[in-house]
């Protein structure tokens, strides 16, 4: 490969050499007459000759001509043609201004791919450009929210975590990275997305097809988001711009999730008490926690309470609803503040831009905050007759979140996730109250009498005692040198250093429950009654840091030339990347923040637990180290050929190699390529329609790749040292992680894309229609194995997927006068199915996890990646309220047999668990500086599963779902409810039949009034004084509400646990 590249480069140099001899150089620049912006991509022809060139990204061009008289023709789509007479030789630097014609291509004219900037009409692949105006239409501190709902083909999964948040044209992978590659200023970005300040962003290009991959290689299988940040421009006076806004959210509502009411839960506790369920907890050596309700039943049973007194106390508990206290004492409305300042400018030889941003978020859980400070500075020089450009960029980001309040996560009970629903957080005066948590209150009292620290837990009292601070400090330095030794050829060398130190500090004061609990657990009482503290008094500090660092180096040669009607643009180069992540974690006991001192603990010997001396453990140390390394080397080439502005042919190829582990050397690399063809029909002489001045068809074909670097081809093992609990403390040992698998390969995604772009006269209607086929091959899938193999699961290249879909964008300018009204319609479909999957996932897992709609995929051959299946539902048994499924064709309540014997064909297949049709309609009205825009979004063609009461959990004492109140209680109830009766004993199969039945599947289709944006740009008379160039106030309301949904489920299909919170923002931006 290296040799081939050498030959190829040498060939390029030869071509170049031939084109430069014995000619005079003519140089100039093309501007847009109206905006005075340079025009890249303009065509410059010499009348009567075959010579032709294209202006570069600065609008500049040069031509080699032998001495004589010529006429130069300047043309650009959307502009009137211009011509200039010229006599060669000439020293004159030509300045040409083109006037915009009626035709104005909508949106962005130049698309940045990270390697090159392409004029929109030269593109053969599937690229979407988002300009600054659209980025600024919404208000948020992160960049992804700004893309959501305005980008064709891009879907944000609101319920998924960061590892599966964005999907571009589906998800052609099961287990490897599913997120698009993020490129910031030409380099892949390794940091967290929340570190990117949207105020710094000038333009975003989304690459959706195979052209993306052959440019970006093996990590581009999920698409690429190319972010270009702002910079100054040459010959621009000093310009200062600012932006400030506040964004206020609605408050979370604890009642939204439909949990069981306190009185229902007490009823269940009473039932369980009568069934002796709590006896083991009551007699437990672990002094298990008992809820206040059960304590009352127990005291009543033991005669310690009279019936009247018990009734009185129970009535009090029934009247207390924890959700009121959560809403009152834990939640608050989130409030974001954002400030940004930019200074930029430039002269003939240099340009610079500096930006500063400050974001502050008051989180919706009381006492928690987040801050972000961003700084970015860049400067670019032109040297040596503009033939050398040298640029540097430095970015510094500090992002900090402080969690002083665990919120609802701090409300757990004895290891369960939820505490009892009649807990109270504060008394009438707002003073913190204690709740039962890990131990029975009588034991807590007893421990106190023996001199231990207070073992009570008060969620509100604990606020500020345990403080988790997460700080990320990022540094990025990019340097690039571009040399143009001769006309037509540029060589670029660029380098980026990136580092990000992420520190997570968990400070637990001695007053925190965490610290008191740990100290008490290990406290020992001597025979004389005195106390020994193996866990020393004082605070506990957990510190974890991850230090990431990467070096990226890129060398690139470009060639641009034209021969008559033929234009060629080519580039080739290589890239190397080194990425390292080191992690450290440590715990300090007896920590004193004033002295920064700590006390060593004995972590060799075991100590009996105070609450149960039959358990002896060593004191947890919590220290660890990790060391991860990623290395990539890539070679790539990319060429575009245009004939007479009519036909575009592009071809690109890339080969990536990585330090993929334990794989045969020849499988470490993957060659990827794409070819594309575009035909601008409107440029053809036979076409020439005044009603349709622009029409282009294009298509591309090629392969993208994806990689899962956690996989290996050979047996690998994790090397560890036996702990103090082990049979042989200190003895090194190894645990097998991966079985031998020498056939491991990279995933490949084949994409075919067809596109049609058009624009009618005066741009009244414009848009694009795209159809794609996206097939995944050799996808890495995780599958379950029969345990007799020695492993539960295994990952390998075992699956294929087939995907296809449409992406349609229609723009219409409905009214064009002093009042403007524009509409944009986005319509996308994506249908993706598993076409090959060698092994069968257990039905239970397909039902439970396969329908989540995000995260791990549990494939079923022939069905969508995320499929909603369910057990057929035969209603409740009228005699006993048992759920009934179908067994051998008739209603049955033989839960075990139904669950055991149901195959995939016995289930009901509803459809995809991810939207298959989605998009938006955005209308924008403008009048004298006022702009009003509102967006209506829709997601269709998918299903979700609603929550309901699960007795297996409820009858083990866990609070449950409010559907309990709707349960079958008497014959006849089956006519009005699907919620089963309370069973005699917890029965998981009975629960599962109901939980995964048709009865709980809902259609997710909905239309949402997504947002309104209203802004006013102050008109000339007021603002265009000497001080301000521009001033705009704007407001934005997000998440207005559902307009229509298919299901009668009261909850929002996209917000299952927490209410959708509207946000209202107000801001001001301007420049001078």
């Amino acid at each position, binding site marked *: 490969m*290296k040799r081939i590249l050498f030959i190829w480069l040498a060939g390029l140099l030869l071509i170049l050499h031939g084109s430069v001899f014995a000619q005079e150089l003519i140089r100039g620049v093309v501007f847009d007459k109206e905006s005075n912006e340079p025009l890249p991509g303009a065509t410059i022809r010499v009348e009567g000759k075959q010579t032709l060139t294209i202006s570069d990204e600065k609008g500049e061009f040069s031509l080699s001509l032998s001495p004589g008289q010529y006429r130069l023709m300047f043309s650009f789509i959307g502009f009137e043609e211009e011509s200039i007479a010229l006599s060669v030789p000439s020293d004159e630097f030509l300045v040409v201004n083109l006037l915009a014609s009626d035709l104005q291509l909508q949106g962005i004219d130049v698309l940045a791919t990270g390697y090159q900037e392409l004029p929109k009409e030269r593109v053969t692949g599937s690229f979407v450009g988002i300009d600054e105006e659209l980025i600024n239409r919404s208000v948020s501190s992160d960049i992804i929210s700004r893309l959501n709902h305005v980008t064709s083909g891009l879907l944000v999964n609101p319920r998924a975590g960061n590892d599966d948040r964005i999907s571009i044209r589906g998800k052609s992978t099961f287990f490897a990275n599913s997120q698009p590659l993020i490129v910031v200023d030409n380099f892949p970005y390794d940091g967290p997305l929340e570190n990117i300040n949207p105020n710094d962003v000038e333009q975003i290009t989304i690459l959706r097809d195979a052209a993306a991959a052959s440019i970006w290689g093996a990590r581009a299988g999920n698409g690429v988001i190319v972010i270009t940040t702002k910079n100054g421009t040459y010959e621009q006076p000093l310009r200062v711009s600012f932006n400030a806004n506040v964004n206020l959210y609605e408050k979370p509502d604890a009642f939204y999730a439909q949990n069981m009411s306190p009185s229902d839960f007490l009823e269940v506790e009473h039932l369980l008490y009568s*069934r*002796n369920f709590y*006896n083991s*907890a009551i*007699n437990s*050596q*672990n002094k298990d926690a008992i809820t206040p309700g059960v304590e009352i039943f127990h005291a009543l049973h033991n005669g310690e309470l009279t019936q009247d007194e018990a009734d009185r106390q129970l009535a009090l508990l029934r009247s207390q609803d924890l959700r009121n206290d959560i809403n009152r004492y834990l939640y608050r409305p989130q409030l974001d503040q954002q400030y940004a300042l930019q200074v930029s400018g430039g002269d003939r030889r240099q340009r610079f831009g500096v930006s500063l941003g400050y974001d502050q978020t008051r989180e919706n859980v009381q006492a928690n905050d987040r801050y972000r400070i961003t700084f970015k500075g860049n400067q670019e020089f032109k040297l040596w007759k503009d033939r050398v450009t040298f640029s540097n960029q430095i970015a510094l980001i500090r992002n900090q979140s402080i969690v002083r309040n665990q919120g609802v996560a701090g409300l757990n009970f004895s290891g369960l996730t939820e505490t009892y629903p009649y807990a109270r957080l504060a008394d009438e005066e707002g003073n913190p109250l204690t709740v039962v948590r890990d131990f029975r209150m009588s034991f807590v009292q007893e421990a106190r009498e023996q001199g231990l620290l207070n073992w009570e837990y008060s969620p509100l009292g604990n606020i500020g005692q345990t403080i988790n601070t997460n700080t990320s400090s990022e540094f990025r330095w990019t340097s690039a040198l571009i040399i143009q030794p001769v006309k037509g050829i540029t060589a670029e060398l660029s380098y980026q250093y990136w580092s990000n130190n992420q520190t997570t500090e968990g400070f637990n004061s001695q007053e925190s429950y965490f610290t008191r609990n740990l100290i008490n657990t290990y406290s020992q009482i001597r025979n004389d009654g005195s106390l020994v503290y193996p866990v020393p008094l004082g605070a506990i500090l957990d510190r974890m840091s991850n230090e990431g660092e990467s070096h990226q*180096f890129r*060398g690139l040669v470009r060639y641009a030339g034209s021969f008559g009607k033929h234009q060629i643009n080519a580039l080739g180069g290589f890239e*190397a990347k080194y990425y390292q992540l080191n992690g450290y974690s440590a715990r300090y006991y007896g920590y004193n923040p004033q002295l920064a001192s700590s006390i060593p603990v004995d972590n060799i010997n075991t100590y009996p637990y105070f609450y149960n001396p*039959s*358990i*002896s453990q060593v004191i947890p140390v919590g220290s660890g180290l*990790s*060391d*991860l*390394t990623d*290395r990539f*080397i890539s070679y790539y080439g990319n060429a575009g050929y245009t004939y007479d502005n009519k036909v575009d042919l592009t071809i690109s190829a890339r080969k990536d*190699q990585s*330090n*993929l582990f*334990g794989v045969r050397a020849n499988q*470490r690399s993957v060659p990827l390529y794409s070819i594309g063809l575009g035909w601008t029909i409107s440029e053809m002489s036979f076409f020439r329609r005044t009603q349709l001045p622009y029409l282009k068809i294009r298509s591309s074909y090629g392969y993208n790749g994806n990689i899962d670097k*956690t996989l*290996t081809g050979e*047996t*690998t*093992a*994790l*090397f560890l040292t*036996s702990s103090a609990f082990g*049979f*042989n403390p200190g*003895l*090194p*040992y*190894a*645990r*097998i992680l991966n*079985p*031998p698998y020498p056939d491991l390969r990279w995933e490949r995604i084949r994409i075919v894309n067809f596109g049609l772009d058009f624009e009618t006269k005066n741009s009244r209607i414009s848009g694009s229609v795209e159809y794609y086929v996206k097939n995944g091959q050799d996808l890495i899938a995780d599958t*379950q*194995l*029969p*345990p*007799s*193999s*020695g*492993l*539960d699961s*295994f990952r390998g290249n075992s699956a294929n997927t087939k995907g296809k879909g449409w992406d349609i964008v229609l723009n219409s300018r409905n009214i064009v006068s002093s009042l403007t009204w524009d509409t944009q319609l986005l319509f996308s479909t994506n249908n993706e199915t598993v076409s090959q999957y060698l092994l*069968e996932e*257990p039905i*239970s897992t397909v039902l439970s996890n396969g329908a989540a709609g995000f995260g791990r995929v549990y494939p079923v051959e022939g069905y969508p990646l995320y499929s909603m299946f369910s057990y057929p539902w035969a209603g409740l048994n009228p005699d006993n309220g048992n759920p009934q499924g179908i067994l051998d064709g008739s209603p049955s309540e033989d839960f*075990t047999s139904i669950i*055991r014997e149901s195959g995939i064909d016995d289930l009901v297949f509803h459809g995809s668990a991810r939207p298959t049709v989605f998009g938006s309609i955005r209308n924008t009205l403008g009048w004298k500086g006022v702009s009003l825009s509102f967006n209506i979004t829709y997601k269709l063609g998918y299903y979700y599963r609603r929550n309901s009461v699960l007795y297996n959990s409820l009858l083990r004492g866990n609070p449950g779902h409010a559907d309990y109140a709707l349960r079958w209680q008497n014959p006849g109830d089956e006519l009005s409810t699907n919620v089963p009766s309370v069973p005699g004993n917890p029965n*998981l*199969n009975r629960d599962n039949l109901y939980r995964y039945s048709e009865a709980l599947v809902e259609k997710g289709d909905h239309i949402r009034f997504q947002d309104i944006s209203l802004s006013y740009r102050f008109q000339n008379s007021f603002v265009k004084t000497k001080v301000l160039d521009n001033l705009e106030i704007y407001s934005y309301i997000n998440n207005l509400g559902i307009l229509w949904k298919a299901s009668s489920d009261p909850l929002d299909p996209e917000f299952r646990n927490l209410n959708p919170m509207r946000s209202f923002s107000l801001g001001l931006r301007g420049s001078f």
Partner: protein
Amino acid sequence: MTIVLIWGCSGFLDERPNKEILIPTSEQDIRSLLDNDSELNLVPSFGLLSSDDLIMTDDGYASLRTEEEQNAYLWRENIWPANSGADWSRIYRIIFIANVVLEQAEKLPESEELSKMKAEAFFHRAHAHFMLAQVFSPHYEKGVNDQDLGIPLRMNSEILERSPRVALQTYYEAILKDLDQAFEFLPTFENIKTRPTQLAVRALQSRVLLTIGEYDLAEAAADWVISRPEVSLLNYESLNSDLNYPFVKYNEEVIFHSVLISHGYASVSNVQVWINPYIIESYQDGDLRKPLFTDLRPNGGYTFKGQYSGNFSRFGGLALDEIYYIKAECLARRNQIGDASSLMNQLLETRYAAGHFVSQEFGAGQELLEWILEEKRKSLVYRGINWIDLRRLNKDPDFQRVLVRQINGETVTLNPTSKKYVLPIPENELALNPISQTDRKD
């Protein structure tokens, strides 16, 4: 370009993505794989749960954390809810590790150390296969049910292979062959008793051979173990019964250290699961097994604390006391009444407080055998051995026992000839491997 070439050639791409993760290629790496004692030194625990070593109170039954424990305790036909069955998966995991070791070792040049480690892997594979069969396979009587199907035999690490049930004869021959191969290259004794030794091989051979009725061979193997000076009987009188755990780890009787897969029912903090009162009552005055093995709880039951593991884990390995019982039984079965009695007396003397033990003599074989088996049950309580013995002795009408459970006023029995002596195969195996479920309908 040059930089790339340098990087490309000097192993830039050979760097490991994660430093903690290694391809085990050296002898030292294989040593580490074999010292993975938390995965390798485990035995199934549902035999103990199904046996009459223990009983549960109603509350104890109700508070069991998992459904499979409740099902197994009451000998229900179906035991495993979805995704359960650690007794199956974790023991097959041992076999997988042993197979990986054997395959990786093949790639290295031969050495004495490597031969020893391969021998260890053979032992682990044999041990795991045998212990699995005692839970999931029908009892094997050599020459009687040779062709009956047992469970999958795994002799390689090919994870995509679906292993069928194999004939019992084939299965046990593989176990005995692995043990034969293991013996030659192992040291007689190791201080780290989680590692297999020649003593462990002979001890396991005697257990396997006794189980399949090869008494002469079993006796020879047991005799070899007893004759070795590296292990000796503990004198129970020297131990302190006030301790939470009176026996220390790797004590003189321990030959091979292994523990039962932990389950809620067998947790030391579970006070609702008791030693069968029948066994408690059978300890006579001065029998130190009672104070050293048992804890009287406030709720009136006795819980077990006498594991040879030195901590809360339930010992399930090989120890010298078992070997004495095996040899005594084999002697008794060939009517060596005097030798059998004296061996028993020699052992039991160490289990009693000074002056309490009265040595016993028996005239008839049957009575002697009954005594040996009774004492064995009392000594090896809570190790899971009783279940293995129940399965084989049930074939002999003289030793058949009906097991009885009472929970919530209901009585459940397990007859000696019941098919429920073979536990069903977990559902997740059947879902992915086309083998038939064990017939448990009586």
